[in-house]
């Protein structure tokens, strides 16, 4: 059985060697298809992974805020539940903003293996220097914990987050804001809120320009500094949670929200519109690539189809010798598979080469030389090979059926 297959393969190879030019054209078609698929998908998948990484790491995986998804029910409704309760004309109690019982939430989050929670307080202040006034959203954090749960350290051009602890009244602001105010590291600005009088802050660090997540109008201070400045001692209104597995964020967030009632937002929820955009991108990529591979399979179809029509006499003689219809069909399908196989290997090499070229390119982005993120995983190679083989087999099988239908008598009679 194997011997017979090897024998049929040797016949198919002879046929292909006889028509070298067509073979080369068909193989190049597949190779170019596979090569560009690899290059394009490496780009697409690479940039997508890079983008998702940024989405995930630019902010904590889960943010618990002091908001509620729906207002807490009135006591009457709470007590009687599904009873016929009709309340109207009541006055809503003014709730103090901030997360109550936040240490319990932090403890619950810390209890998850690999997870770390960082409490923070955000609020608005006004920075003043000379005649300039700039509104600033300050985030009060514990630098020790915050550095572990976010990539904030990487976003700093000057200084470190821990510097906040070393300097009395330290503040970290964006580069653009600093230049608008005309301050630099070490300079002092005045900060005031609606409820407190102005106090002096010393700039200890600057964020890089163009960080979308840290808008130019936000700044970092110590948590207790923020609490005192905003007049809300011991209160926090935001808990950032970092997980060892970012993809568990949705599940963990739902659990925390159910348990504590506060809105817990995972990174997936935060960026759902981006993620659905990525799905669209993938659909586009795979349809373009399928089109390339489809065109490549036309080459295989042509070669095998020509081979079948040129080999009518050979088919007739092989049938008379005692080759079965299936043997002949197999010979021509093998021709297609061989073309696809050589094309795939050549395409892998072409794709590898293209990726090397793309990987060596450097682009200046925001003043920094950056290379294109590429995904070089074996998955793309496997997809390209699988799709090409499938296309090759189908493209060869269609004309090969014709070979098995050749009636040797028609050929022999015509030749005599």
């Amino acid at each position, binding site marked *: 059985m194997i011997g017979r297959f090897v024998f049929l393969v040797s016949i198919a190879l002879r046929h292909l*060697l006889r028509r070298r030019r067509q073979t080369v054209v068909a193989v190049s078609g597949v190779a170019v298809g596979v090569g560009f698929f690899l290059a394009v998908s490496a780009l697409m998948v690479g940039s997508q992974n890079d983008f998702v990484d940024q989405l995930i790491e630019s902010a904590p995986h889960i943010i618990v805020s002091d908001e509620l998804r729906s207002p807490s029910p009135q006591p009457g409704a709470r007590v009687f539940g599904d009873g016929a309760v009709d309340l109207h004309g009541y006055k809503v109690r003014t709730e103090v903003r901030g997360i109550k019982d936040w240490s319990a939430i932090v403890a619950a989050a810390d209890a998850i293996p690999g997870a770390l929670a960082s409490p923070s307080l955000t609020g608005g202040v006004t920075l003043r220097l000379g005649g300039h006034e700039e509104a600033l959203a300050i985030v009060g954090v514990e630098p020790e914990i915050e550095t572990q749960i976010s990539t904030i350290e990487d976003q700093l051009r000057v200084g470190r987050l821990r510097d906040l602890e070393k300097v009395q009244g330290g503040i970290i602001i964006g580069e653009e804001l600093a230049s608008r105010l005309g301050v630099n590291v070490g300079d002092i600005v005045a900060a005031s809120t609606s409820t407190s009088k102005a106090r002096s802050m010393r700039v200890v660090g600057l964020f890089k320009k163009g960080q979308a997540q840290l808008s130019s109008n936000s700044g970092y201070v110590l948590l207790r500094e923020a609490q005192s400045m905003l007049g809300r001692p011991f209160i926090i209104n935001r808990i950032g949670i970092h997980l060892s597995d970012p993809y568990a964020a949705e599940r963990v967030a739902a659990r925390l929200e159910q348990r504590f009632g506060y809105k817990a937002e995972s990174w997936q929820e935060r960026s759902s519109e981006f993620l659905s955009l990525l799905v669209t991108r993938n659909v586009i990529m795979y349809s373009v690539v399928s089109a390339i591979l489809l065109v490549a399979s036309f080459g295989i179809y042509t070669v095998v189809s020509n081979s079948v029509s040129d080999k009518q006499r050979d088919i007739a003689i*092989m049938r008379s010798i005692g080759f079965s219809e299936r043997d002949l069909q197999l010979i021509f399908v093998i021709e297609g598979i061989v073309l696809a196989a050589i094309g795939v290997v050549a395409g892998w090499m072409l794709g590898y080469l293209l990726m090397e070229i793309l990987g060596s390119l450097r682009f200046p982005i925001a003043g920094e030389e950056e290379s294109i993120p590429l995904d070089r995983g074996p998955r793309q190679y496997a997809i390209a090979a699988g799709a090409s083989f499938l296309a090759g087999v189908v493209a060869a099988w269609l004309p090969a059926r014709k070979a098995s239908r050749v009636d040797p008598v028609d050929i022999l009679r015509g030749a005599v």
Partner: protein
Amino acid sequence: MTGILEARGLGRTLPGERPITLVKGVDLAIEPGCFTAIVGPSGCGKSSLLYLLGLLDRPTEGELLFEGREMSGLSGDERARVRLERFGFVFQFHFLLPEFTALENVMIPMRRLGRLDGEETKARALALLAEMGLEGKEGKTPDKLSGGERQRVAIARALANDPVLILGDEPTGNLDSHNSARVVETLLALAHEEGRAIACVTHDLDIAERADIRIEMLDGRVERIVDNRDTGRAPNA
């Protein structure tokens, strides 16, 4: 009638609006050790009869028995198997596979059958080519061989799987008289010395005269069967 291959009322009609009858009511027997020539004018259906006898075409009526077994009920694969194991074909236009050398052409039926290993296959193919007087031509592709040489390669290939029946369709039709005589000698020797059954369609009167049995056809029917052997018995009497 006792033969390795027997036809009883064999007929073949091409379907269509006006059906064409190629062969009709043929009774004959092909005997081992005997050279049978099928003769007749062009279009008399002798080639069509040969294709029926060679299991290349299916009869529309009658019976065909090979070694006592009815053939018409066999599937395409089973018929291919019988051809591979028991039949050898020699055609007018040689029909060697152009991509393969003389040696490889002779090896093809053996490799397809797969009974011998690679070395045995090659040894047998070389022996068959030598028997046909083709030493030194083994490595040549068909386009480097003369017409006579090609036909002898085709005969060697027909013999590859040691067939009991060799069918020829104008095997000398494309050869000069010298090569033609040589091919006829070879075929006669295969019948008389090796006991194979040979059936050839031919126009060649010389072949027809030298055949053991001559089947004369006209308009798709067998007109006369002449036995040239010494026994002088009249077959089909």
